[in-house]
Structures are given as structure tokens and as C-alpha cells.
């Protein structure tokens, strides 16, 4: 019987996808239909590229966040890490570094901040919520020190090109999202490391008993989250030609919302990168579509909240019905 089941699942990967993501896919499609009907410019290739570029920063941060949430932890510091990454790059260029050294330095800075979060959480046993609330403030303070709060311009043409140029017809920024999506998806769903993350998030004690080095998994995942946030920061600073000290403020909430919309459970142990990507798309399309319809700002806030509630509710309901 188990064999039979397996074959059917393998034969219809779309059916499986639909079963797992039906709830939010419906939300996504309905949103697109509504916006298309109301503004014909919405459903254009140009606008789709637009949306993808706009969600890039949140989507990539949300990939990192998915790992962390999967573990039953949270990382509220990513908004600040995004800002630090941009500022680190700006300062490195000011100090005369070239493109590659700056890139490496920025990624290392992200990894180091993630390492700090991970060590404080795993080794000292502090709750990640409070650790990352604290580091959120610390990193936000750090980013402001070199310029005393003022933004710093970035002039390096290669850096700027990341956010501005295209490659084989697609903006580079979209390529980066695609590559990072595939990377995270494969790492999570196909490798032993991903499996360890699921086990640790699902039942920490069981994971310890099974011989998983839970601390190491945790630290690694906070580093992944830091690196993803740093990449977000690179894209953001490249799109803005500058490092803003208030960059990324409260992006952690959008990233969490994207992951949770996509079915990642805050209790840990459940979640996928595909879901997170769909979640990020919903958020991005909502922002873009409401702009296209000239919905006033405060109504946007309200509608966005309602759509998130509706999407999560549909998702929860569709999953419950299946049981």
C-alpha cells in the first residue's frame, strides 16, 4: 500500500504542489485577477519584472528567515543586518577596496552577525527572540557610527550594475533571487543538513538523542540567515546607489510574514522554500497592485493586513480539510 501511494505522488508532482500550496496559490491567483481587471497595465511583462525586483530584498531575507523559523527560532535582527551590509560595502569602497574584496567583506560581515546571534542562542541558551531584539538594536547602532547617521553613497559601477543591469534579458537581481531560491530549496529539501534542520526544529530533544549536533545546526542556520540578509543588503544598496542607516527597518516582519504565509510553522519543523517564495510574491504583488490602483497609503495598510489574514486562513482551512 505504501508503494502504491508513493508512485501516485511521484506521477503527479503538480497535484502534490497543489495539495500543499492550494490555499495560498488561490490567494495569489485571485489577487492577480483582481488587479488585472482593475488596471490593464498590471498584467504586463514590464510590471512583472518590476514586482520581482521589488520583492527581491524581502524574498532573499525570507529564505534565510525560513531556516530560522523552521528551527523554532526567530531572527529579528535581519533588518539591521541589511543596513550594516550596505554600510560595510560603502565604507569598504571609501577605503579604496575593489568590487570583489568588498563583496567578500560584506558577506563575511553578514556571516559574523549571524554567528553572534547563533552563538548567543545556542551556546548561552538565551531565547533567540530576545537575542535578536538586542542585536537588532546593536547592529542598528553600529551602522550609524561611521557616518553619524547620514547615508553613504556608493559609486562603484559594478556594484551599481547589480541592481541596474540585465543578463540574458533578465535583470541581474532576478537571477540572484532565482539562484538563491534554488540553492536554499535544494539545501533544505535534498541534503542531510536540511534534514537535520527539520529534525531539530521538530523535536529538539529527539534530535539530541538521535545524535544531531543541535548547537552546530543552530549556529549554521543563524549564519545562513545573516548571509541572506547581507545579500539583501547588497541588492538594496545597489538599487539605491547608497547605504541608508535606516535601511531595512522592520523588514523582518515582512520576511516573517512571507515565510508564515508560505506555510512555515512558527513552532518549528514545518516549512518549505517554495511556500516562502509564494508568500513573498503575495506581499510584493499586493504592494505593487495597490500602488497601481492608487489606493491611499493608510487603506493600503488595512487591505494588506486583511489579505494576509485571509490568505493564512484559507491555507489553514485547506490543510485542515485534508486531514
Amino acid at each position: 500500500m505504501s508503494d502504491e501511494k508513493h508512485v501516485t505522488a511521484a506521477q503527479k508532482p503538480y497535484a502534490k504542489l497543489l495539495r500543499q500550496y492550494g490555499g495560498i496559490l488561490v490567494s495569489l491567483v485571485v489577487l492577480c485577477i483582481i488587479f488585472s481587471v482593475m488596471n490593464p497595465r498590471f498584467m504586463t511583462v514590464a510590471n512583472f519584472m518590476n514586482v520581482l525586483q521589488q520583492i527581491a530584498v524581502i524574498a532573499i531575507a525570507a529564505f534565510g528567515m525560513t531556516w530560522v523559523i523552521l528551527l523554532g527560532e526567530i531572527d529579528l535582527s535581519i533588518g539591521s543586518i541589511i543596513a550594516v551590509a550596505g554600510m560595510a560595502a560603502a565604507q569598504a569602497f571609501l577605503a579604496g577596496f575593489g568590487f570583489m574584496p568588498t563583496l567578500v567583506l560584506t558577506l563575511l560581515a553578514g556571516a559574523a552577525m549571524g554567528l553572534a546571534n547563533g552563538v548567543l542562542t545556542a551556546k548561552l541558551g538565551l531565547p533567540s527572540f530576545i537575542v535578536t531584539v538586542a542585536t537588532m538594536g546593536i547592529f542598528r547602532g553600529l551602522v550609524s557610527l561611521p557616518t553619524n547617521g547620514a547615508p553613504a553613497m556608493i559609486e562603484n559601477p559594478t556594484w551599481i550594475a547589480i541592481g541596474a543591469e540585465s543578463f540574458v534579458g533578465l535583470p541581474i537581481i532576478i537571477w540572484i533571487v532565482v539562484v538563491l531560491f534554488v540553492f536554499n530549496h535544494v539545501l533544505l529539501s535534498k541534503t542531510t543538513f536540511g534534514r537535520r534542520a527539520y529534525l531539530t526544529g521538530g523535536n529538539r530533544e529527539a534530535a539530541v538523542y538521535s545524535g544531531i549536533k543541535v548547537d552546530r545546526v543552530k549556529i549554521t542556520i543563524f549564519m545562513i540567515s545573516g548571509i541572506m540578509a547581507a545579500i539583501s543588503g547588497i541588492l538594496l544598496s545597489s538599487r539605491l546607489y547608497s547605504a541608508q542607516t535606516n535601511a531595512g527597518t522592520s523588514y523582518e516582519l515582512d520576511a516573517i510574514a512571507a515565510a508564515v504565509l508560505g506555510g512555515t510553522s512558527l513552532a518549528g519543523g514545518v516549512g518549505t522554500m517554495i511556500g516562502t517564495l509564494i508568500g513573498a510574491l503575495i506581499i510584493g504583488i499586493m504592494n505593487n497592485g495597490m500602488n497601481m490602483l492608487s489606493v491611499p497609503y493608510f487603506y493600503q495598510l488595512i487591505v494588506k493586513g486583511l489579505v494576509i489574514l485571509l490568505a493564512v486562513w484559507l491555507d489553514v482551512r485547506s490543510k485542515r480539510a485534508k486531514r
Partner: protein
Amino acid sequence: DGIGASLLTQQHPFYIELADAMKAEATAKSVPLEVAIANQDLNKQLADVEDFIVKGVDVIVLSPVDSKGVKAVIEKAQKAGIKVITVDVPASGVEVTSYIGTDNYAGGVKAGELMAKELGDKGKVAIIDYPTVQSVVNRIDGFKKAIGEHKDIEIVAQQTGITRAEALAAAQNMLQANPDIQGIFGFGDDAALAAAVAVKSAGLENQVKVIGFDGMEEARNAVDTNPVMVGVIQQFPGEMGKRAVDTAIDVIAGKDVPAEQPIEPGVYTGK
């Protein structure tokens, strides 16, 4: 088609008055106008402008989140063939079609001179600031420059108070640490009004004088009725918004417009 406006925030009376004036003028001249709010996030401002480009507006009016970083936003619009007008905050490192705004540095200097006059050229003053906003930094610089010319006036404290609640706490704590403060300069109306509350709750109404910046209705009323509020540097967002829309209409019509349209701030010291 029409005008797309991307404004820094919608939670400050200055910007509300600016937006209202723009809308009124646009209605009067019957040009379509759409307003997006960047909520102090440059990335959101960029996204808003990108969406304007897709929608195909003729001209964009920006109140930049930040003068340097807005370059990316402006270049994006200009590449798409859309002309850009900035209001309130100038853009640096990139040419725009026109800039309409208050000279914040000059306003700061005026505030400093008013303070010196009120204190009789000597005493201790404190500043409530907001260091990540360029226009505020300019005001503070102007204020310090003016104070610097009066040897007997000393700046004893400077703290950040972005929202009214934060400014209140900052003012209270500065007064606590330096009970001999005689003057407080708030970077905006909120900061000044909060400082006035702090002065009152510390019972120092007869000692401390507060000066603000922006000069919106609430602050002007306070200057009229509250002896602690001795004055406020007044900006004219209504004028700014009207002129921005008029300029945009001229740009659409292909007329030449002046590259800079400074609006001199006033000093309001009561009826």
C-alpha cells in the same frame, strides 16, 4: 499620465499640508495627481517611483527620503524619460528639473539668533535632534553656527527625540541632568511641543524658553498661548505644494522652469 508625487511620510502635519495643497492645486487646474507615501523608507520610494513609471505619469514630484540616496530613484525616472521635481529636501549628485524648498540652514540660523535674543545673550541651551534626516541636520548646523557667535551661550546637551513621546522623555531627562537649562531648540514642532510639556512638568516655566521649527498650526497656537514657547521657525508647505504642482504643469506644457525655487522660512513669535 498626469503627476505622480512620492512623499516622505504622511504622519507629519507638514507633509499633510503639503499633500493637501498639491491636491487642491491639481484639482483647481484639473490635472490628475497621484500621491504615494514612502514612509521614510528609500526602498519604498524607489518602488513607488517604479510603479509610477509603469503607470506612465508625465512628471514626478518627489520629497526625497534622503538627499544623497534619492539619486538612484531620480535617475531611474529620468532614464524612463520622466522629469523630476523635488520639494522640501534637495537631491544631491543629480540634476533635477526644479527644486522647491525651505532653506533649512538659514532657518536654523534664524532659530539660533532668536534664541540668543530671548536669553539676553547668555545661558545654557539644549537641542533635540533627529540625526538621520539631512534637512534636520542642516537646521541643527545653522542653529549651532548662530549660537557659536555668542560667547556666553553654551550648548550643554543634545539628545535624539524622533517621535513626540521620545522627545518628551529626552527633554525630561536633559532637564533632570541640567536643571539650569534656559533654552531648548526642537528640530521640529513635535520636539518643541514635547519640550514645552517637559518644562511644565518640571515646573521650570519661568526659566526655560523653547523654540521650534516647521511652524504648523498647533505650534503657532502654542506660541500664542504658552509663554514657554517663545517662537517657531515657520515653513510654508502650502505654498510649496502649490508651486510644485504649478511647476509640474509648466514642465508638462514644455515651458522652462527655474532650477531652484527657494522659499524663505519665516520667524513666528506670536500674534
